[in-house]
Every structure is written in C-alpha cells, then in structure tokens.
C-alpha cells in the first residue's frame, strides 16, 4: 500500500491554555487535530494527578496534529511561542498516511 510521509506534532499543554493552542491551530493551515486526555504527569513543575485536583490549573491535555513536512515550521513556531510561556512540551515525529491530501 502506497503511503506518504507526514509529520506528527504532539503537544502536552496545561488545560487552561488549551483554547489558545486550538485557536492558533485554527488560524494556521492545518487540516485538523486530536485532543487526548492526560491523567497524570511530571515535569519541571513537579508531579500532578487529575484525580487529585479541584481546579483545571495544573491539569494537562495533549494535542496531536498531523501535517505536511513542508508546513511543520510554520505550525510549530507560533505554537511554541504559546507553549514556552506555559507549562508544556512539544515533540515532533515522522509518520505515514494513506490519503496525502487529507493532511
């Protein structure tokens, strides 16, 4: 089966800033994204657990966006600007898809 190389941008970001990331993605030329729940984690800001919180502050979610390798930089840069100020990380990896026009 013929596949096409794309990039998978994975962002872990604190919940209160999620809308900013999604709004930014909406403004950028990406065809979509998927948001995953996160139930616990540890980073420079220490460890946390969703079940042990009353506020959304400190809780994380994860956004995954598959896009064309040519577009990666134009997507990552504005997102990185948001993430750098908040609690969160960005990773980028390769992936293949079947319908290249979809991404």
């Amino acid at each position: 089966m013929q596949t096409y190389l794309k990039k998978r941008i994975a962002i872990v970001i604190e919940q209160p800033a999620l809308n900013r990331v999604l709004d930014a993605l909406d403004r950028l030329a990406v065809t979509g994204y998927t948001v995953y729940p996160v139930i616990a984690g540890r980073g420079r800001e220490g460890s946390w657990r969703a079940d042990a919180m009353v506020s959304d502050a400190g809780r994380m979610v994860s956004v995954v966006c598959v896009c064309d390798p040519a577009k990666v930089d134009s997507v990552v840069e504005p997102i990185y600007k948001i993430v750098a100020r908040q609690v969160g990380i960005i990773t980028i990896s390769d992936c293949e898809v079947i319908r290249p026009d979809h991404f």
Partner: protein
Amino acid sequence: MSAFDLALANLLSPMVLFFALGLSAALARSDLTIPESIAKFLALYLMMAIGFKGGAAVAKSGVDLRLVGVLLAGMAISALIPLIGFALLRLTTRLSVVDAAAVAAHYGSISIVTFVAATQALTSLGITYEGYLIAVAAVMETPAILTALLLVRRARPDSGHHEGREGLGALLREIGLNGSVVMLTGSFLIGMITGERGLKAVSPFVNDLFFGMICLFLLDMGLVAGRGMREGLKSLSWSAIAFGLYMPLISALIAFMLCFALGLSLGGTALMITLAASASYIAVPAAMRLALPEAKPSIYLTLSLGVTFPFNLTLGIPLYVWLAGRVV
C-alpha cells in the same frame, strides 16, 4: 456558646471529619481517589444548590437597598485585600512580584466550599442568614484578579505584551465567563425567578442531598489538600506558610470592621467575614494560568488548598462565627 465550644462542635461535624479522612488517606498514600468527573459534578451540584437556594431566599425576602450596599462592600473587599496581601508577601517572603501578586489574588477572591461549610455550621447552631450573601460570594470571585494584574503591571510596565494577541479584553472575558461563576450566578437568578414554587420542586435535590454531597466533596478536598501538602509544602518557605495562616485573620478583621456599617444579621455577618477570610482554589488558579503564567502554581495552590483551606474549615469558621457575635 463560647468560641471553644463552637470550635469543638465544628471539629466533630461529619463535614470536617470527612475532610480529615481524605487528608489522612492522602498523607498515608492510600489509593483512595474521587474520579475527576465526579469531583466536577460535586462542584457543579454545590454551585447549583447554593445558588438556587440563595435566589429563592431573595425572591421571598425581596430586594432592598442593603443588598446593593453589601454587594459593593464585597467587591471592595475582594479588590483591596490583594493590596495588603501583596505588600505583606513582598515584605516577609522572597516571592517574586508575579508570585506575590498571584498569591494575593487568591486571598482576595473566595472559596465557595468554605462558605458552604460556614452556612452548615450556622444552620446546626440554628442561626439564619440573608439569602443574598450567595450573590455577594459570586461578585467577590473576580475583582481580586484585576487587582493582581494591576499590581504586576505597575511593577513591570513592560509586561503588557505578555497578553499578546489575546489582549486584556479577551482575558477578562475568559475570567468573567468562568464556569463556576456562571453556574453560581445562573442558579441564583433561576432561584430568584422561580421562587418558592421552583424551590419546592427541586428541594429534595438541592436541600435533602446537600449535606451528604458536601461530605463527599470535603472528602475530595481532603485528598487534594493532603496531596498538596505532601508535594508542595516542602517547596514553601516558613514565612509563606505563615502568610497562609495569618492572612485569613487579617481579611477577617477587615470584614469584621466593615460589618459594623453593613447592618447584616448575625449569620450574614459571619458569612461575610468567612468570605473575606477564604481563599480561592478554582476560579483564580485557572485565571492565573492565563493571565500570569510565570507565577508558580505550586506556590499559590499549596498555600490556598494545603494551608488556608484546612485552617478555615477547622478553626477559622468557629472563630468567624464568634467574631460575628461581637458585631451584632
């Protein structure tokens, strides 16, 4: 009742004991947890029940001029306490401007669970209170956030760019439309519109279940506070922890003095003092992550949840009830 009797009765109430159960379980690293969505449901329920009941009470008693005065007083307290808190933090601790402002915002705003616990303590003592106090609670949630933002701007005039594209307007909108504020205010209005008749229909839900649901909610608060203590206290200096204990007393005193002018009932005065003394841990932390992301959540959340909330729940509330007795 003496202050001591009040404190003892409060400490042995099911609410406080469930809080203690959660706290001990978390400190002992038990795997007892309340699922996230259940905790959110309990919080929604709380807002709905307390809002509805407050609104229905106002529908019954009618709106008078005093209401306006008390609302304004509440807003003023919420806006001014952060100034004092900020000054004290900068004087006594090594917190940065941003961290100090963020912490101060929490103490100007309010904790609805502390408020509810105080209403229950009053009810068990047979003391009534004005229904519109819940509206006061709602208007006290956000002014403190604005004060904190102004404090940071004054100290770092260049920090404006941080709001970037979203701008201050968008920020205020996000803060003002916070879910808990909307739920509380909305339920209050619905209670006011539907009055006695509406209250009768939802009464088994918002009245009969109320106490049990609060016990569950406090169990969760205990779990959260215990985890906060385990993880967060070590990163706090002694002077910061002390702030978490004396700041509610200072706020209480300010409200206490104001209450001589407000003409509230005994119960109303106790609640007003409790609101002033309580510190936010839902609306303000979320707002801080957007408005002042450089402020460290481990500081403000631990202080508010791990120090001030337990203090208010156990010793603070009886003290504030006793204080109210000195006003009325």
